[in-house]
């Protein structure tokens, strides 16, 4: 036995609390307000008091607005750890890793990790929240002036490369969208709960071809916080402990540089196996998978990189009937970012915790002892993998 499983209970990192605000078209609240609300909810969920928190890690989304000032908003005093982290969509995973290291080292004993954002406004489209930032000068200005603005075109270029190299099709991407919507139907917290068909996907308009509207994630307001503490501390608390068994990051560093892997192989290919090794489990041991799904394509390429299928076979793999509530692969069981809600890396982390606890209601996986979670930031530039386990999975 190696990795966190072998550490003494006083140092073994465990997720003891999960707090989620109202999510979606929730208007009139700032990111900082969502963040404070989420932390309070997570602390209450754990059966702790705010004063028990001695470490706070904050992160913000596209609208910013969150900083270490959150400490004062929460009235927290004498913290032993406080920092604002940023690795874009991988931040939720990296925060959990920093929190786990803090617990392991004794730097802090109860660490709150929080993300919140409020990009949606009642008077503008969801796409406008992410698509209209145009710098006037410099390299970013040049890219914007060229039309290379926002995530949609860059991910479309990545997806096209995968298609051109491996023969992946828009219909195959559609299978991911349809399956995740079927999961979202079972999730009361999901924003999109009307079932869709492959024909609906194929009829949805192009956003950045080869990506259609139904290939793209939602835009959401809200906040999620997670409490990380030790197994020893968690034993007497309110929720079933979710053990943080393994983790790894990968930051390839190829953005806006020539690289043969662009669109074909991501940092998940190294972070995934490293996290599984740390956890002492194999891919075949994984019961539930929660993948960062900013686009359907991201799910497909991450499945390949984690080794669920051979490189290049992601298209046939997702179209084979394995996905969705009737399939064998328990993947993005809350609907993910495509149909559930988009709170960056906290979307897969939160659903992973719910599943590992066995609190997924209608969408709960029968087997949920080992849960694999991915985070993806930038344009496939930043990756964080977590391996979480139930009490049985950690034994």
């Amino acid at each position, binding site marked *: 036995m190696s990795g966190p499983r072998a550490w003494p209970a006083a140092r073994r990192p465990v997720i003891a609390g999960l707090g989620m605000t109202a999510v979606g078209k929730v208007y009139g609240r700032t990111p900082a307000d969502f963040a404070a609300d989420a932390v309070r909810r997570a602390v209450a969920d754990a059966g702790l008091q705010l004063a028990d928190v001695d470490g706070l890690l904050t992160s913000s989304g596209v609208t910013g607005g969150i900083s270490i000032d959150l400490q004062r908003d929460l009235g927290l005093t004498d913290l032993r750890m406080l920092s604002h982290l940023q690795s874009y969509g991988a931040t939720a995973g990296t925060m959990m890793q920093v929190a786990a290291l803090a617990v392991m080292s004794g730097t802090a004993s109860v660490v709150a990790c929080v993300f919140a954002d409020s990009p949606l406004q009642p008077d503008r489209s969801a796409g406008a929240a992410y698509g209209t930032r145009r710098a006037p000068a410099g*390299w970013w200005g040049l890219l*914007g002036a060229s039309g290379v603005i926002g995530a949609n075109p860059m991910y479309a270029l990545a997806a096209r490369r995968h298609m051109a190299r491996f023969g992946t099709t828009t219909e195959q991407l559609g299978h991911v969208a349809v399956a995740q919507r079927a999961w979202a139907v079972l999730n009361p917290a999901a924003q999109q709960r009307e079932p869709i068909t492959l024909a609906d996907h194929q009829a949805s308009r192009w956003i950045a071809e080869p990506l259609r509207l139904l290939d793209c994630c939602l835009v959401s307001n809200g906040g999620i916080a997670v409490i990380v503490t030790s197994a020893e501390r968690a034993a007497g608390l309110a929720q079933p402990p979710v053990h943080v068994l393994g983790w790894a990051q990968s930051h390839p560093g190829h953005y806006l540089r020539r690289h043969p892997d662009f669109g074909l192989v991501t940092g998940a290919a190294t972070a995934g196996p490293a996290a599984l090794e740390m956890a002492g489990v194999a891919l075949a041991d994984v019961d539930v998978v929660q993948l960062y799904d900013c686009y359907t394509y991201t799910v497909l390429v991450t499945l390949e990189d984690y080794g669920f299928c051979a490189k290049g076979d992601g298209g046939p793999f997702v179209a084979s009937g394995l996905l969705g509530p009737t399939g064998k692969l328990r993947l993005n069981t809350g609907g993910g970012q495509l149909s559930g809600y988009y709170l960056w890396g906290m979307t897969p982390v939160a659903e992973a915790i719910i599943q590992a606890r066995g609190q997924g209601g209608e969408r709960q996986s029968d087997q949920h002892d080992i849960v694999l979670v991915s985070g993806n930031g930038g344009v496939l530039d930043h990756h964080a993998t977590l391996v979480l386990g139930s009490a049985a999975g950690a034994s």
Partner: protein
Amino acid sequence: MTVGPVDRDAATAEFFDGATGGQFLLRRCPLGHFSEPPSAVCTTCGSTDLGWAAAAGGATLVSWAVVWERATGDTEPNHTVLVIGEFDEGPWWWSQLVGADPASLAVGQRLRVEFRRAAAEHEAVPVFALA
């Protein structure tokens, strides 16, 4: 299909001087390796001693995407073809592809660089066209 306005800053001044003269400038290290224009270090050897050198102008198509505006009324929505071009010197660049039917595109097609301006008071923006 038009380019937007962009102004120079300290990091891009020489690049836009080149663009004004119809040249796409790459970074080049003393060993002759080429890197993308925003590079601060040579992507091949890590040298920080980077000068500027004009690309010959030939490139090949690495990937493409077609960004569609939302349809309004009965009119066909506007679209912009975006590409990654690989210069013959090695570096990649991201910009529009002008004057091409997206249905006809394939990886490896030959490209050349052109320059467009949003307005006379703004900098020249490199775009690709089929060679």
